[in-house]
């Protein structure tokens, strides 16, 4: 609330600042890394890419480190697993730790004892935890009733789809040396990008009808101060151009550029949604 003039706080929608300004920008990256880590592991399981799983493991580690970097008391991080019954941050932190453990064991088994029942068991466990890592960030923001744009049942779904989209894009970049795999991933990415665009459109459309605060936030994204970020980075560079590129060609350079654009769009999506979150005025008189 510091930085907001009292009068504005009373009668106007005031943007949240704690999770986007200054140190708070790390939250946008934590949401992004969580989504892409979970998504990449899931699609790597599907396409059986060991490199993808390994990079997903690294990204899950980065998610936890980014979360911790945002804390003002990082040495107390272990306390964050103490309230899984009520707090989504707590649940997410547990998902990350369990994923790191399950995925590490799974990769070791796949490497040294592939084809065994144990590998299947740990792939299932790793997959469940990866899904948890991908979806928890959606619930972290979705649970916040005070910010109506975030308080939506669609947002966990959107974040999972965005995570899978980013995961496919990253897997496509990782696997450019394997033309068969990268082409298969590109085909999947084309379809998922369209689904992602539809989900995003539904999310924003619903937000304009949910409440005046959600509508205010949605308008900031669609035609307000966040419109350049949203239309240029999220929609044009993150969705439209990659779809066109992937339909037009499957050349290595095209796949790499399209993949990087999708990943950048994913970062911009989290930034836009966090930045657009506003609180209702204290006195709803105007």
């Amino acid at each position, binding site marked *: 609330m510091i930085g907001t003039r009292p009068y504005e706080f009373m*009668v106007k929608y005031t943007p949240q600042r704690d999770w986007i300004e200054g140190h708070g920008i790390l939250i946008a990256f934590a949401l992004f890394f969580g989504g892409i880590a979970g998504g990449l592991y899931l699609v790597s399981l599907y396409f059986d890419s060991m490199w993808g799983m390994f990079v997903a493991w690294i990204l899950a580690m980065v998610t936890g480190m980014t979360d911790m970097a945002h804390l003002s008391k990082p040495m107390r991080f272990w306390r964050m697993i103490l309230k899984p019954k009520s707090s989504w941050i707590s649940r997410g932190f547990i998902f990350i730790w369990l994923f790191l453990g399950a995925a590490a064991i799974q990769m070791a088994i796949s490497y040294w004892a592939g084809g065994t029942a144990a590998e299947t068991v740990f792939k299932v466990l790793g997959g469940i935890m990866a899904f948890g890592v991908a979806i928890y960030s959606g619930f972290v923001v979705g649970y916040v009733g005070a910010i109506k744009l975030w308080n939506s049942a669609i947002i966990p779904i959107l974040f999972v789809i965005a995570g899978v989209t980013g995961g496919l894009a990253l897997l496509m970049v990782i696997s450019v040396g394997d033309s068969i795999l990268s082409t298969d991933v590109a085909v999947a990415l084309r379809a998922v990008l369209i689904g992602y665009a539809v989900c995003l459109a539904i999310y924003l459309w619903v937000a304009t009808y949910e409440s005046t605060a959600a509508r205010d936030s949605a308008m900031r994204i669609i035609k307000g101060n966040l419109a350049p970020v949203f239309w240029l980075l999220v929609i044009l560079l993150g969705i439209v151009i990659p779809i066109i590129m992937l339909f037009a060609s499957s050349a290595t350079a095209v796949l790499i550029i399209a993949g990087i654009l999708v990943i950048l769009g994913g970062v911009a999506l989290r930034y836009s949604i966090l930045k657009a979150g506003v609180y209702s005025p204290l006195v709803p008189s105007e």
Partner: protein
Amino acid sequence: MRWGMAIEQKRCIGCYECVLACKAEHFLPPDIFWNRVLIGESGKYPAVTKLIYNIRCNQCADPACVKVCPTGATYQRPDGIVVVDEDKCVGCRYCMIACPYQARSFYEDGNAEYFPGQGLTEHEKIGKTLYPHEVGVVQKCVFCKERIDAGLAAGLTPGVDREATPACVIACPTKAIHFGDLDDPYSEINQIIKEKKGKAFHPEYDTQPSIYYID
């Protein structure tokens, strides 16, 4: 027992005495406010209304901040007061995000002085010893729980006896702020809320605030 407040807005003259009393009581650092007086206008000429709201943590009966806290640092006492255990807070600020009333503050700059560049005043020096605030954690109004606890231990009644009543309540020169037990149907505060039709801010959030405002 559930402590609560009723604030009569027509009695509030916007003198900020409650803000200063809170600052002095808890030796609050610069830029940290556990309660605020918001003054503004509403409407268009000639139908203009002056707005004065004295706001602080609503000590909600079903607080969003307690639910989201991943460490249990924010918790609710049996008497309804929501407090932050500074030793457990990790500074993730999820509670600040979740509070629909934006009633929490983050203590970021431990070196801030009331008179920048001139060193700490005697009051600030004493405060750092008597009421040390941990840097990098979230803070909020606690209904002066120290006064309530000490008062109850001495057989006093919060809201009635000055020594057991929050500093902002006893500092108010117009007696605009009332304090008492919301669970006691015969308490003065419940009578005031009932007779004068006290309303809580944003009941739609379902947090059941313990502070009522009377137009």
